[in-house]
């Protein structure tokens, strides 16, 4: 069947340089899209502001994990050596804190690192291998040296024609409508 009949998913506009994508992003932001994104081979600086994104919430997740690690360490060591099975070791108090400091630190770091890594994956909702942008054959260049703006169909301001016109207005090097595919 013809392309038109398939359900559109998103527009993908390709750009050549960082400056272009920057400008494009700021325009999209001002246009007031919500379900849209910018794809770059590497982090482009100032892009967050250009897209008007709030600061990342990852820090709070890590903090929570770190505190969990710390308290876990304290409780474990105090209970095991100090309470559950106290022994006379080198004539020192069974529940001596100073000797527990290194492990408190290590467990804090360990859980924080888990928080940072898996928090990041969670916030980004990856792994996700079936995002519509992958339907585009050109998109592979994104991880090489091309820059993309994608506007998704579910955005309430999305309109096949209007949005197309708007994106063309950004003078991308290429514009593509990504549509549903049966065989995927």
């Amino acid at each position, binding site marked *: 069947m013809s392309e038109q009949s398939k359900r559109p998913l998103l527009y993908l506009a390709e750009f050549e340089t960082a400056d272009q994508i920057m400008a494009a992003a700021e325009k999209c932001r001002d246009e007031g899209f919500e379900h849209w994104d910018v794809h770059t081979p590497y982090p482009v600086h100032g892009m967050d502001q250009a897209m008007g994104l709030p600061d990342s919430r990852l820090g709070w997740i890590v903090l929570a994990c770190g505190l969990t690690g710390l308290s876990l360490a304290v409780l474990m060591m105090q209970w095991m050596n100090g309470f559950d099975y106290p022994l*006379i070791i*080198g004539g020192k108090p069974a529940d001596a804190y100073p000797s527990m400091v290194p492990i408190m630190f290590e467990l804090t770091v360990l859980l924080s690192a888990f928080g940072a890594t898996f928090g990041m994956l969670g916030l980004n909702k990856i792994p996700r291998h079936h995002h519509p942008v992958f339907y585009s054959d050109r998109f592979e260049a994104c991880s090489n040296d091309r820059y993309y703006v994608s506007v998704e169909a579910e955005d309430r301001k999305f309109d096949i024609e209007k949005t197309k016109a708007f994106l063309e207005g950004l003078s991308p090097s290429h514009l593509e409508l990504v549509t549903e595919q049966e065989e995927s």
Partner: protein
Amino acid sequence: MNKEKPSRSGSKIFWRSLEEKAQATSTEVGSDVVKATIGLGELNRLNRRNFLTLSGAIGTLAGIEGCIRRPAEKILPYSQTPADVNPGEALHYATVLRRREESVGILATCYEGRPTKLEGNPDHPTSQGGTDLLLQAEILELYDPDRARTPSKGGIEKSYAAFDAMLDDELGRLLGKRGAGLRILSQPTNSPSFMRLRQRVMQRFPEARFHNYAPVNDDNVRAGTSAAFGRPLEVLPRFDQAKVVLALDSDFLMTETGAVQAARQFGAKRHLDSAAGEMNRLYAVEPSLSVTGSNADHRLRLKASAIGEYLKGLAAELAAAGVPIPGLDAAVRGAKVEGIPETWLKAVAKELASHRGESLVVVGSRQPAAVHGLAHAINRALGNSGRTVSYTAPADAGARPSLEDIKALTADMVAGKVDTLIILGGNPVYDAPADLGFGEALNKVNISLAVTSHRNETADRTDWHLPRAHELESWGDQLSRAGRYAIQQPLIAALFDSRSDLDVLAALAASEQRGQALVRETAGERGIAEELAWQHLVQKGADERDAAQIFGGLPIQAGSLAQVLSAPAGGGEGLEAVFLTDNKLFDGRYTNNTWLLELPDPMTRITWDNAALLSPAGAKGLGVNNGDMVRVSAGDASVEMAAWIQPGMADGTVGLPLGWGRRKGGSNFHGAGFDVYPLRKSDAADIVQNVTVEKIRGSYSLSQTQDHDSMEGRPLAVDATLQEYRETPNFGQFASPDMSAGPLWQTQDYSQGQQWGMVIDLNGCIGCSACAVACQAENNVPVVGKEQVAKGREMHWLRLDRYYVGEDENEPEVAYQPIGCQHCEEAPCENVCPVNATSHSPEGLNDIAYNRCIGTRYCMNNCPYKVRRFNFLNFNLDIPETRQMQHNPSVTVRFRGVIEKCSYCVQRIQGARIVASREGREIADGDVVAACQQACPTGAIAFGNINDPNSAVSAKREVDRNYGLLSDVGTRPRTRFLGKIRNPNPEMKG
């Protein structure tokens, strides 16, 4: 080679438990008794025969031990448990063992009829609870898997039936000629039963003849008394009565007859509870640094042959000092004393003269009769006779001197006069004087029979061989030199089908009696006939009193003595060799004993070997270093052996330790040491003149447990002179102070309950190493072998550190320090164990949980005393079953990969606790005796509850010379040391 060494091939089953192992190999060692005596668990697997054997063993023991209802030797089934025999509970039986010419009372610890440990019998005067190195190691001899198990002819195993048949018609033949040509060679005996049976054999075979021989004997001592008093006598010194002792080539603390008793008495005179105390003073004059010499306050290194001259010189000085020796003035005049320091004549003479009746001159058995004789004369002149020394007639009055006797026998053998030769014990082919050619002479004998525990060099040359029963598994009796009559009772049924000397003699005497019956009959003749008295005797182990007549002051036969003295002393300018009774192997009879082989020699610290001992100057002259091979030649004979530079050796002397380099009769000693007997001639059995030592190609690797002799000026084995002690009573603390400030944290409270602690009096430690072997026997400490020792992997829980003090390598002062776990209250080892495998008990013990230990060795690194031992390999693999029978059932046998160390004998503490709680009382002081403490002949070790102000150990901890080793590290060791005190004579300076 050594079964107890980890055999790499054997480790292919190292995942298995030792129990599995034991069962897997239980057919390997084919004695029924062995299987039977493993323990009750085995009983269901017993067949009738060994069931009865076992019962016999138990029955014997139970019957003896105060249980009068049941006559002994009656077989009873174990299903009715004999009284007092509870599995896992130790029983103690009194018996007696022969050490050189003396008999020593013993208490044996037995589990299920299985002796595992020997201690001294406090009720026996020659022991008084003390033991020495060899007595501690004796138990391993009993279980030696290399012992012969059956009669054999020309090395082929035979049945007793075959043997008895042979013996019968042989004896029948001999009866015809009234025993002409029948000769019996035994070791010198002190056994009344032996003498009684000897009589009966002689009655049956009037023409037969008994001989005795021991390579290390007291011939010279008796010859000395003959010279002095006109009759052979035993000499009984009383060191506990002597304030001044002059030891001439006498190692009375270690290798001479009666060493255990001597050490105890000597130690008694060196106990100092305060600076005000008095202690004795020991002068030693000797060619080679002996244990006794290492304890001397003044030591003069002198060629053995010059010692007689020195004594003459001293006698002359004594006369000058107002102690004339009647009738000998002429004989002692003009002694050759060049090179001997003036003070050693004048000052020593003065010292002796000023201690009449409380001084003592002792002479070693290596010295010729003349020196002994003169010493007796001097002792008499000093009024010491009867006070610090007394005399008794030898137990075996008629015995000819060993050397003479073996000479006569060999001569007859060569002359073809010997038709049948029966050798009871000993190893003459190996240790008889080389020039006699005893081995060759054996070929001239029609039928020769050796009755020895192992198929040794002698058994290898005789036609027949019988396994000889060990003293611990056969009946017998012995007289101490003072005449104390003691019963030697078997503690276990003969492990192998062996016979005792008494049984053999009984057979010769055509007596039906065996074992106990023979001994009882003797006892009967001594007036101990009825059951009660007999039971009492056996239970006590010895008679209440000394039977022998004690002679105090006997008149000196000045005339004959003067003649002996006038004979020229052998000493020449040439190099001379002295044969040393080995500290560990004695005359070679202990050469298969792995504990002794691996024990570092008290002086050289060499394990698994002996060496030719040279003085530093002598070695320099030869260009010889430690371990270089040398050829020692005397006349036509020569041996090639490794050399060792021994500080304190007399120049012009080479020391040759006897008893090594055996070739037959064991599997442990192969390649261990060098045999010096080939140099030993019947005319020079103690000192050889004009030997030559030459360096030859090659060197030999000797492995030591301690290769650094200096303390590097560190306050370790702290010592002081009596003078310094009186000036600074706390010199110990002064040198090695305790931490003044406590640690930052809340320290553990040890003020409550039992708190175990040990105090070791370095002034009492003579370096005999009995404690080390006692610990090994008590705690199942494995032997690792020469290679592992060389790598630094020996396992001794208690080691004896020996340091040389002073600058002059020729005149070293020696300091001994027994080191076991110090049980630090702030133990560095505990802090670092990642898995809590080692921690402190509330009673202050530093414990190890073997099954928790993963073997990081961190604790070993962090132990300042380096007392923690690591099982680098599976040292307990492939232990023969008989050997396993010695293991102490209350102590775990450790597996590969775990740390172990001194536990303060925690199993004994728990044992005492169980007894105490059963009796509903607290553990009393003295209930817990550590193995090392119990073995120590001088009582230098105290152990007990330091919270009990009245305990012996608390008293010792109060002594002002106490200090903690490396206290300044902050470990707070529970073991304390009492600083060593030397008692030099101010006048000996310069």
